[in-house]
């Protein structure tokens, strides 16, 4: 056997590969051969080191030195310095890292991990890991000596409310399903998480699938269901795979299937995969989809608790709702109710996105205010810019202006402010964001996802989108704002499902809080944030050094100029894509 004095691990995950990791690997081997070191130093491939954003990276053992941003050209120097001369090359040293998980960092002081407690800590593909963290202890407690009524009582007392959007009390929902006589009954988990910008549920499914299963089994016992379905969106293949592994393991342990833990209670769960329709997150549409039909919502009542999947009593909850259940049973309703506000108990996960220093997944006690989330948890606005608005609740939520920053995050307070809790999208926008453009963006989303079944939603959202597009293009007219307001009202009250009813929210809330921006677009033909293409112009100023970078990156060749001379943009050709501004290293391109 060969003895290697040193091992070099080269990261070959997708991000590093896209930055040429394979070439670096080849170059390393070549160089080691050339230097006669190939018998002393072994080069290996590895999947993830953790600093991939700065591209090809390697780890040298036994020293444990982590290099990043190494290109093929750097290899000879690196080999000479590190392996021949034994000197660490500072230039490529990875910056000291505190955390390698980009989505879910270590909790900050204002965070509390209940739903996310196991994510990133246990191996989701190993049920024993979950069991070691008190997993399935709640189920044992329930089957070992609680009546279904007692379970429901406990959930009611905890104050747990649905985490899928509307915030309906979970215990009440279970009571209704329990009260229905018909059988079989179904327990459904809504894992369709379709809001753009939201990935809280995915993380739970991928990181702690058994918590969701356990919650569902307990719920199934409480309402008297015999079968469960998890409806997961097709965009989440890893979550689907992880869930299926978890279900198999739970079956093997007798935690799913016939006569669970010898209690006489039988319950099994199956995963069903969606096919890319946002509206399938709506409960009646979701059930139609499980039935193998077009995912179109139907009017309620009858509610699912009475007539749901295949016309049978069904209970539907969100992933996060179920994930809370085992801990409420184990630690007691009082413990859960000690977190949050009077009417909103417990914690909520949010996917932080947008212009903050720390994006990613967080879990905070309800009742925390926006300021604490933005400035403490998310560590403030990027680049020292000013906060303009926060969008909460996804495409059916609204935008809150800075003035609302001290508002507590709970179901009632958000509703009062004109948005919804939603499933946990939390987009922070700085002063460079155009609110009309944001409203247009969400309208595009809902218009596109409208299933078309009812007229107000299908036609109304299209009309609204057309007006918004016109305003953004600089062709807004007198009367547009009033027309938008009318449409908002009409669509809200006449649409069949929550999608149509919520679709006007982004427009309504921006009209309410940022009306002046609409007015500037329409009456002054000006986009205050300098975003809307129809209302801006790119210009090159004297700072230009003539490096030609912009001209080479312009997709429509709108930029001309000699090397080392100031360049110019032809406004008639320019499509206002903004690439030149992004690539210019001299801040020589400005928007007028």
């Amino acid at each position, binding site marked *: 056997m060969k003895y290697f004095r040193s091992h070099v691990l080269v990261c070959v995950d997708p991000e590093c590969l896209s930055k040429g990791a394979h070439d670096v690997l080849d170059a390393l081997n070549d160089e080691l051969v050339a230097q006669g070191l190939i018998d002393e130093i072994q080069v290996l491939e590895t999947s993830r080191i953790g600093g991939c954003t700065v591209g090809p990276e390697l780890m040298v053992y036994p020293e444990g030195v982590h290099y990043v941003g190494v290109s093929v050209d750097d290899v000879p120097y690196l080999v000479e310095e590190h392996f021949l001369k034994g000197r660490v090359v500072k230039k490529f040293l990875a910056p000291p890292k505190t955390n390698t998980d980009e989505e879910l960092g270590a909790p900050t002081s204002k965070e509390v991990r209940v739903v996310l407690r196991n994510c990133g800590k246990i191996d989701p593909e190993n049920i024993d890991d979950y069991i070691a963290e008190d997993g399935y202890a709640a189920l044992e407690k329930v089957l070992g000596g609680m009546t279904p009524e007692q379970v429901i009582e406990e959930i009611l007392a905890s104050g747990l409310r649905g985490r899928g959007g509307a915030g309906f009390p979970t215990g009440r929902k279970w009571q209704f399903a329990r009260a229905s006589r018909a059988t079989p009954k179904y327990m459904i988990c809504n894992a369709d998480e379709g809001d753009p*910008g939201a990935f809280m549920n995915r993380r739970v499914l991928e990181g702690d699938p058994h918590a969701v299963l356990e919650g569902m089994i307990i719920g199934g016992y409480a309402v008297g269901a015999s079968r469960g379905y998890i409806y997961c969106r097709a965009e989440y293949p890893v979550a689907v795979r992880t869930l299926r592994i978890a279900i198999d393991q739970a079956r093997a342990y007798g935690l799913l299937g016939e006569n669970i833990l010898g209690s006489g209670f039988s319950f099994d769960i199956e995963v069903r995969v969606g096919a890319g329709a946002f509206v399938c997150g709506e409960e009646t549409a979701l059930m139609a989809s499980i039935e193998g039909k077009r995912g179109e919502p139907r009017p309620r009542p009858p509610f699912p608790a009475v007539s749901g999947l295949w016309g049978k009593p069904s209970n539907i909850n969100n992933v996060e709702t179920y994930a809370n259940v085992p801990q409420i049973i184990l630690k007691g309703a009082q413990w859960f109710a000690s977190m949050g506000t009077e009417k909103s108990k417990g914690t909520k996960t949010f996917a932080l996105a947008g212009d903050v220093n720390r994006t990613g997944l967080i879990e905070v006690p309800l009742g925390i205010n926006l300021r604490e989330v933005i400035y403490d948890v998310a560590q403030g606005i990027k680049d020292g810019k000013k906060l303009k608005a926060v969008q909460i609740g996804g495409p059916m939520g609204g935008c809150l202006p800075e003035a609302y920053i001290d508002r507590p995050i709970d179901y009632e307070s958000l509703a009062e402010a004109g948005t919804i809790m939603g499933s946990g999208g939390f987009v922070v926008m700085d002063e460079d964001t155009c609110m009309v453009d944001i409203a247009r963006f969400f309208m595009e989303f809902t218009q596109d996802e409208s299933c078309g079944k009812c007229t107000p939603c299908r036609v109304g959202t299209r009309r609204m989108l057309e007006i918004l597009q016109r305003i953004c293009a600089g062709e807004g007219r007198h009367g547009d704002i009033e027309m938008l307001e009318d449409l908002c009202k009409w669509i809200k009250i006449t649409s069949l499902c929550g999608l149509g009813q919520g679709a006007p929210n982004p427009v309504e809330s921006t009209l309410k809080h940022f009306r002046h921006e609409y007015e500037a677009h329409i009456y002054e033909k000006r986009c205050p944030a300098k975003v809307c293409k129809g209302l801006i112009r790119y210009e090159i100023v004297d700072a230009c050094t003539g490096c030609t970078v912009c001209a080479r990156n312009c997709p429509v060749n709108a930029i001309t100029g000699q090397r080392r001379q100031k360049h110019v943009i032809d406004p008639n050709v320019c499509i206002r894509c903004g690439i030149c501004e992004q690539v210019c290293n001299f801040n020589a391109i400005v928007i007028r």
Partner: protein
Amino acid sequence: MAQTLHDIPKNDPVAVPEQKAKIDRILAENKNLPGAVMVVLNELQAQIGFVSPAMQAYVAQQMHVPLQQVHGVVSFYSFFTTMPRGKHTVKFCMGTACYVGGMPQLIEKAKQVMNCDIGKTTADGMATLEVCRCVGACSQAPVIVIDEELHGRVRPNKLPQILKKAQQ
């Protein structure tokens, strides 16, 4: 675009023995599940890559459901495609974070580099360009997904190199 089982194009999966065997296996495994139509179509899309009109007709016949219903489901969900796709799929995330992070500009540039519009397949059949909804990696916005591979924090000047993967 309903199609009967009489005039199947020669290269349709229903007419190609290996593919047909795959379809039959998928049907046999799933057709008795409750709500099987979605499951079968999902499997066909995953394993064959698309669900042609002839495949829809075949599924309807084998499962004893009206062709109308199968067609209705296929046309409703954006994941199902009725035509073969490019060898690679390039998806541009147009979720909130990516949109705010500059995706529209990247798309303009990509259209030029690939000489192909969104929703279309390049002339050489190499790549299909699509926009998609949030892929759940917002912290890395803007995000482009080539096949199953995610590329985050894509900058316009790095785009051509990334797109090379979809050109061979």
